[in-house]
């Protein structure tokens, strides 16, 4: 049921209407709305809403999905007033650096106040996707009981809830199609939530509980999988054995995405071939993940299933180079690959040789480099090898032990289409290991060559020159992450003045101070947010910014025991909702 607009058309017979009114709307509004309802891209919709008042109105009535990148940039009241017909909401909360423990607990981003408003204004809400939000069991129960049409819940990197909250969802949401629980900080009490699905429950399409460690009732899971004929995504947790996984695959050979459980089980030859056959019967399988505690013996089971794989997530699998190599021979259509650096440069050479269609590569560190005595991992050699073999590469996240300017320059010449270039040389301020020079020229090459670059993360020893390059060349850059880099305020000033599309800037431990912060303070209104921690900004500098720009929220996170003058952690963001009303005592709004 869509809420109807009031007074959609001016009455042609009324004395007030005239030639000009009719000319201003060449289409009846219903037609305009119908056309606009086909628009999905939020950038397009935002552009449409700026054309004229009629188009603004038509757009807002026809929008069914809304994305809010910063939950404090707008209030639920303002949102529901503008968009009355929303069915699906995506909300992001804490600043990204909270992933690295830089944001204290209980900072905020609670979903509850949103749910309270949605319960009255969006009674027919179907989907809620949350990232870095705090969600309580009470909120989950409220959600489960308030929205009769609720279908899809996705929680990514959230905290504050337990498996009891999940049980509310599985018990009450009769139309649930998606339950996606990923990388959250959950209080995992028991696996009973799975058994709370009603007996004849049939609608599930996506189930991801890899995050959870408690045992679930396998019979209940089996029943669920056999009843839900539309199930496309199934990602189980570590307690599901290989034998159990095999039984699930036999019940659901139509699965597109599978996340394995524990792979430690030793299989008899018969079990081995049964599992292999179960995998190869999954003709629609495109995405594989899981792989914790993987063993060499297991991998060949997958080979027949890999023919159509487009995304292989091995980022929790400690694989050696030959194991990866043997696996990749069977994955010719691979587009996205996530691995651990245990595969080393040799493993990446195999990537270059076997995956010509590769578009995205993420290489994570297998162990904490600070604590590891033995140095393994990947270097510039592996990255180079991938760039020679994978010409379509446009997304990379690469954690490495060493890098050179020359290698990066060659890499971007081989792959000039990078949209996302995130390079992390793990030792802070490490120079080019061959020349001893800063890594300025590497990132200079990246921004000069990759004109489509939207996201950049820099590392290594960097002077202001890197930022001069970024400001001068990175005209499409939207997100920039900086750590332990730069020489002076000038570096940050270059970026603020130079990158017209900059939306998110996150900085830690750099010598940027008040002069940099205040050099382009109007810039921040065109951005989603700025984060600066461990830099040289002071409270007075932040107060000045807050004074000059009343429509920005300028927040400082104070940690005890530090100098009162220093602004330890600064978070600046634009908002139409005004200052936060729920800020904890350690967050000072200036």
């Amino acid at each position: 049921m869509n809420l109807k607009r009031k007074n959609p058309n001016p009455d042609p017979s009324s004395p007030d209407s005239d030639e000009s009114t009719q000319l201003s709307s060449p289409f009846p509004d219903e037609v305009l709305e119908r056309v606009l309802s086909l628009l999905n891209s939020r950038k397009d919709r935002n552009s449409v809403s700026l054309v004229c008042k009629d188009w603004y109105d038509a757009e807002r009535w026809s929008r069914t999905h809304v994305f809010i990148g910063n939950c404090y940039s707008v209030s639920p009241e303002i949102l529901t007033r503008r968009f009355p017909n929303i069915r699906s909401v995506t909300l992001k909360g804490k600043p990204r650096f909270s992933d690295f423990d830089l944001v204290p607990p209980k900072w905020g981003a609670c979903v509850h106040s949103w749910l309270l408003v949605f319960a009255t204004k969006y009674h027919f809400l179907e989907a809620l996707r949350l990232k870095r939000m705090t969600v309580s069991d009470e909120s989950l129960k409220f959600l489960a009981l308030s929205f009769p049409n609720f279908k899809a819940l996705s929680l990514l990197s959230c905290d504050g809830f337990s498996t009891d909250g999940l049980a509310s969802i599985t018990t009450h949401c009769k139309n649930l199609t998606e339950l996606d629980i990923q990388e959250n900080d959950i209080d995992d009490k028991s696996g009973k939530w799975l058994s709370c699905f009603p007996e004849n429950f049939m609608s599930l399409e996506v189930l991801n509980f890899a995050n959870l460690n408690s045992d679930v009732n396998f019979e209940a899971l089996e029943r669920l999988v056999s009843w839900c004929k539309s199930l496309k995504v199934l990602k189980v947790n570590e307690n599901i054995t290989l034998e159990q996984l095999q039984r699930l695959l036999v019940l659901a050979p139509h699965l597109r995405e599978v996340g394995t459980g524990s792979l430690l089980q030793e299989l008899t030859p018969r079990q081995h071939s049964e599992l292999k056959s179960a995998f190869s019967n999954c003709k629609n399988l495109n995405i594989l993940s899981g792989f914790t505690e993987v063993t060499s013996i297991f991998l060949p089971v997958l080979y027949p299933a890999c023919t159509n794989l487009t995304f292989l997530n091995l980022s929790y699998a400690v694989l050696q180079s030959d194991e990866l190599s043997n696996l990749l021979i069977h994955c010719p259509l691979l587009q996205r690959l996530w691995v651990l650096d245990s595969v080393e440069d040799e493993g990446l050479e195999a990537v270059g040789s076997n995956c010509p269609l590769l578009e995205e590569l993420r290489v994570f560190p297998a162990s904490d480099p600070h604590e590891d005595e033995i140095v393994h991992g990947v270097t510039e050699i592996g990255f180079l090898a991938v760039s020679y073999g994978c010409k379509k590469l446009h997304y990379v996240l690469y954690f490495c032990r060493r890098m050179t300017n020359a290698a990066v320059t060659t890499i971007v010449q081989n792959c000039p289409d990078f949209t996302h270039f995130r390079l992390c040389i793990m030792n802070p301020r490490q120079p080019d290991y061959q020349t001893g020079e800063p890594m300025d020229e590497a990132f200079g090459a990246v921004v000069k060559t990759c004109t489509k670059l939207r996201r950049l993360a820099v590392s290594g020893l960097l002077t202001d020159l890197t930022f001069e390059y970024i400001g001068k060349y990175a005209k499409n850059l939207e997100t920039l992450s900086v750590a332990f880099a730069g020489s002076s305020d000038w570096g940050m000033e270059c970026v603020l003045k130079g990158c017209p599309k900059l939306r998110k800037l996150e900085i830690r431990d750099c010598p940027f101070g008040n002069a940099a912060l205040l050099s382009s303070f109007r810039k921040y209104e065109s951005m989603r947010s700025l984060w600066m921690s461990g830099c040289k900004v002071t409270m007075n500098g932040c107060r000045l910014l807050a004074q000059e720009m009343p429509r920005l929220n300028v927040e400082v996170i104070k940690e005890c025991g530090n100098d009162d003058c220093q602004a330890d952690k600064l978070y600046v963001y634009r908002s139409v909702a005004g200052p936060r009303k729920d800020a904890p005592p350690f967050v000072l709004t200036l």
Partner: protein
Amino acid sequence: MEKEGLGLEITELRLGLPGGSAPILVDKNEKKRVFSDISDDHENSSTDWKLTQTKNQVVGWPPVCSYRRKNSFHEKDRLETSKMYVKVSMDGAPFLRKVDLSMHEGYSDLAVALEKLFDCFGIGEALKDAENSEQVPIYEDKDGDWMLVGDVPWEMFIESCKRLRIMKRSEAKGFGLQPKGSHKGNSKDVAK
């Protein structure tokens, strides 16, 4: 950390004239640093950054999200210290299982867990009355010897147990089990 040069000077605010340029804060002691200063200056920074120079104390670096850290980085710790997984095989059962010995408080607790795992009874009985039971739970210790489960104190058992096996009585004869209560001639004094 030294703080001179960045103390009170920062608070010297100069507001611009109406319609003039934005107010600028000037830190008179700040100068552009040539990069050689930086590379030499690692250990002796004159700025008052919070960053400590010791690698191990950098919070949130490398930038791996905390979920991944917990599940990847400390995997060795997880498996070796906080958890004590050993493989368990049972004669006649088609597949191996694993148990976390650190999760159990004693032999009877372990027996219950094993019975659940293999869906059978009798292990508890076997521990009490080894001579007459159908199943014989044995374990391989650090030295590679097979011992009867229940012989040694629990704490000693979980430290030395590498693998568990539930054997049929008929197989047990002639298997080469170390006799009950035998001292193995190592320097640790078992008897207390």
